[in-house]
C-alpha cells in the first residue's frame, strides 16, 4: 500500500513534467505538421541558460527561469522564421532541419559548458512527510508551475484570438490565411511558444534532476511516446497521455523494475501506434 501511494505521487510529478514537454512537441506538430527533433535540445538549452543566469549573471532563480524561457522561445521562433518556414510543407526536410539543430545545440552545449554536470540546484529544499509518504518541496513547486503553465497555455489556445488563429491554421491553413491569419508571423510564434515550454521545463527540472549536454535525449524519447499515445497534434491528448506515461513509468518501475517498465511502455506505444495511429484521444489525424 505504501509503495502504491508513493508510486502514485511520483507518477503525478512525472506526468506534469512530461505534459509540459509533450504540449510543446504536439503544438508544433499540430500547427505546423513538423516533428521537432530539437525539442530535447531546447530542454537542455533551457537548463543551461538558467544555470548560466544563476551562476554567471547572479540572477535569482525565478528570473533565470524567465531568461531561459525567453532565450529558448526566441531561438525557436527565429529558427522557424528563417529556416523551417521555407520548407514547412516538406516533412522530411523539416525533420532534417530540426535533427540538425539538435546535433548543433547539444554539441554547442558540450563545447561551451563541458561534459560534466555543473553545480545547479533548486533553491527550494525540504520534504513534506506524512507517515511514510513524502513529497519533496521542489517537486511541489515544479508541479505547481507546470499546472499553471498548462492552464495558461490552455487559456491562450482556447480563449484568445492568437490561439484560435493557431488552431485555424492547423485545421485548414489556406482558409485561415484568407481570414487574415498570417502563417509567416504565427508559425514562428507558435514554434517559439513550444520551444519556450521546453526551455521552461528544462530550467525547472534540470536543477532537480541532472543537467548535461545530452540531457535532451531522453526528453525526446518521452515526448515521442507521449504524443503517440495522446494522438499527434492533440493538446488534450498530450496532457492525458503524459499523466498516463508518468503513472506507467512510476508503477512499472516500482513493481517490475526499470528495464521491464521501459519495455512495457515502448511496446504499449508501438501497439497503439499500429492499431490506432491517431492515438488514444486524437480525433483528427493530420495528413503527414
Amino acid at each position, binding site marked *: 500500500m505504501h*509503495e502504491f501511494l508513493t*508510486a502514485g505521487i*511520483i507518477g503525478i510529478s512525472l506526468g506534469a513534467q512530461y505534459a509540459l514537454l509533450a504540449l510543446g512537441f504536439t503544438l508544433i506538430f499540430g500547427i505546423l505538421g513538423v516533428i521537432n527533433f530539437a525539442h530535447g535540445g531546447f530542454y537542455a538549452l533551457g537548463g543551461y541558460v538558467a544555470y548560466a543566469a544563476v551562476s554567471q549573471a547572479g540572477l535569482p532563480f525565478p528570473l533565470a527561469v524567465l531568461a531561459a524561457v525567453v532565450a529558448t522561445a526566441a531561438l525557436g521562433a527565429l529558427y522557424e522564421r528563417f529556416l523551417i518556414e521555407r520548407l514547412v510543407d516538406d516533412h522530411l526536410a523539416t525533420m532534417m532541419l530540426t535533427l540538425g539543430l539538435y546535433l548543433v545545440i547539444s554539441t554547442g552545449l558540450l563545447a561551451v559548458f563541458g*561534459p560534466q554536470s555543473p553545480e545547479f540546484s533548486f533553491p527550494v529544499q525540504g520534504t513534506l512527510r506524512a507517515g511514510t509518504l513524502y513529497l519533496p518541496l521542489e517537486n511541489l513547486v515544479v508541479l505547481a508551475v507546470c499546472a499553471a503553465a498548462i492552464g495558461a497555455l490552455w487559456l491562450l489556445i482556447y480563449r484568445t484570438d492568437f490561439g484560435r488563429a493557431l488552431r485555424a491554421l492547423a485545421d485548414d491553413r489556406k482558409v485561415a490565411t484568407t481570414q487574415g491569419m498570417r502563417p509567416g508571423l504565427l508559425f514562428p510564434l507558435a514554434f517559439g511558444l513550444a520551444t519556450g515550454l521546453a526551455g521552461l521545463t528544462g530550467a525547472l527540472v534540470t536543477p532537480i*534532476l541532472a543537467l548535461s549536454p545530452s540531457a535532451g535525449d531522453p526528453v525526446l524519447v518521452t515526448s515521442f511516446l507521449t504524443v503517440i499515445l495522446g494522438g499527434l497534434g492533440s493538446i488534450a491528448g498530450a496532457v492525458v497521455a503524459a499523466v498516463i506515461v508518468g503513472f506507467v513509468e512510476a508503477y512499472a*518501475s*516500482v513493481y517490475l523494475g*526499470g*528495464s521491464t*517498465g521501459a519495455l512495457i511502455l515502448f511496446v504499449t506505444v508501438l501497439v497503439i501506434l499500429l492499431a490506432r495511429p491517431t492515438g488514444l484521444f486524437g480525433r483528427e489525424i493530420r495528413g503527414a
Partner: protein
Amino acid sequence: MGRIAKRSLVAAVVAAGLTFTAGAGAQTTCEVRIGALGPMSGPAAQWGLAMLGAAELAAAEANARGGLQVGSQRCSVSVLSYDTRYTAEGAAAGVNNLASQGVRFLIGPVGSPEVTGAKPVATRHRLLMFANSYAKNAIGPQWPLVFHLGPGPSEWAPPIVRLAKEQFGMRSVAIVAPNDQGGTDIASVDAEVYRQHGITATEEYYQRGTTNFAPIVTRLLASRPDVVDTASSPPGDAGLIVRQLRQAGFTGPIGRLGGPGTEEIIRVAGGIDVVRNFYWYEVAPTEDPRVRAISDEYRRLLNREPPENTNLWLWVVGARMTLRAIERAGTATDTNRVAAALRELPVEDPNLGRGAWTGQSFFGINQELSLPFGMGMILDGRMVGVRRIDVSPQ
C-alpha cells in the same frame, strides 16, 4: 597535403625503426611510440584524459632520464592519442589508427564497450594493451597481450565489504546500477561479495538514460535494506539516487562499490550532510602524500596542471611498467617478449608502493596489475578520509 606528408613521414620513421632493430646498432636516436586510447571528448572525457596524462607523464619521465634503453640503443618515448568516443567502433578504429602510426603499446581504453571493441583488433595486430574495464571478460587466456589495470571488483570488493560491515553492521543491501555492461558486470560481482560476507543482496537495474530515480528508489526501499549500494552508476546518476533516497526517508548508509566520482556525487546529492553515511571504493589511496606526489611530478615535467581524475595515479603505474618491460625485454617491436617481461616484473612503484599480479582465479590469467587502492568513508556528514588497502599476491 599535410596528411600525406605526415603519412610518408610516419612510414619513413617506421621503416627507419625496423632497419635499426634489424641490426646495425647505429647511434641515431630511435623512438618508442605508445598510444593513449580512450574517450578524449564527451561525457567520459575525464577518464580518457587521465590515461593520456599518465602516458605523457611516464614518457616524460623516461625522456628526462635520457630515454629508454632498448637493446643497444636509447630511444625517446612519444605519446599518440585517439578519441574512442566511448564506443566499440571508435576503439577498434583507434587501434587501427594508432597501429598504422607505429604504435605497439596501448594505454587504455577504459570502458567496457571500448575494451570489447579494442581487444580483438589489438590482438589481430599483436599490440600490447593495458585496459581497465570491470567487464567480467576484460582479460582472459585467449588474449595473452591484454593486461588489466586493477584490481577489479573481485579483488577490491571483499576488503571494503568487510570494513563496511565492521563499521555499519548491515545485514542486507540493495544494489542499483544501469542495465548495461558497465552496470551489470560490477553490480553482480558486488552482490556476490556481499553474500559471501553473510549479507543479503538484491540487485536492481535501471534503464540507461533514466532521469528521475524516484520510482527506482521506491522499489529499492521496498525490500527495506540496511544499505543501498550505487555500484558503478555514473556519478551524476548516483548523486541523484542518493538525494532521492534521502528524500524518501532512507537514513541508512549508502555504499559505492564501483568507481570514483565521490565529489560529484556529493555535489549532485546536495551536500555532504545529505550524503551523511557513505563508503566507497577509491582507485588509489588518494590521501597518501607519496601518491599525491605524482601530480607534482606532472606539473614539474610537463609544465601544466594534471588532469583532475584519480585514475591518473593508477594509469601512471601501468605506463611506467610497460616502459620498464620494454627495456627489460630489449625490444620495442616484439610485443610477445615485452609481455613475457612484463609478467615477470615485480610490482613495485615509487609512488603507489607494492602491488601484485592477480587475476588467475577470476579471469583465468594472471595479468591483472593489482595496486594498493583506497576505501573512503563519510560518517555522520563528516569526511573521514581514504584509507589505504594493500593487495595480496595470488
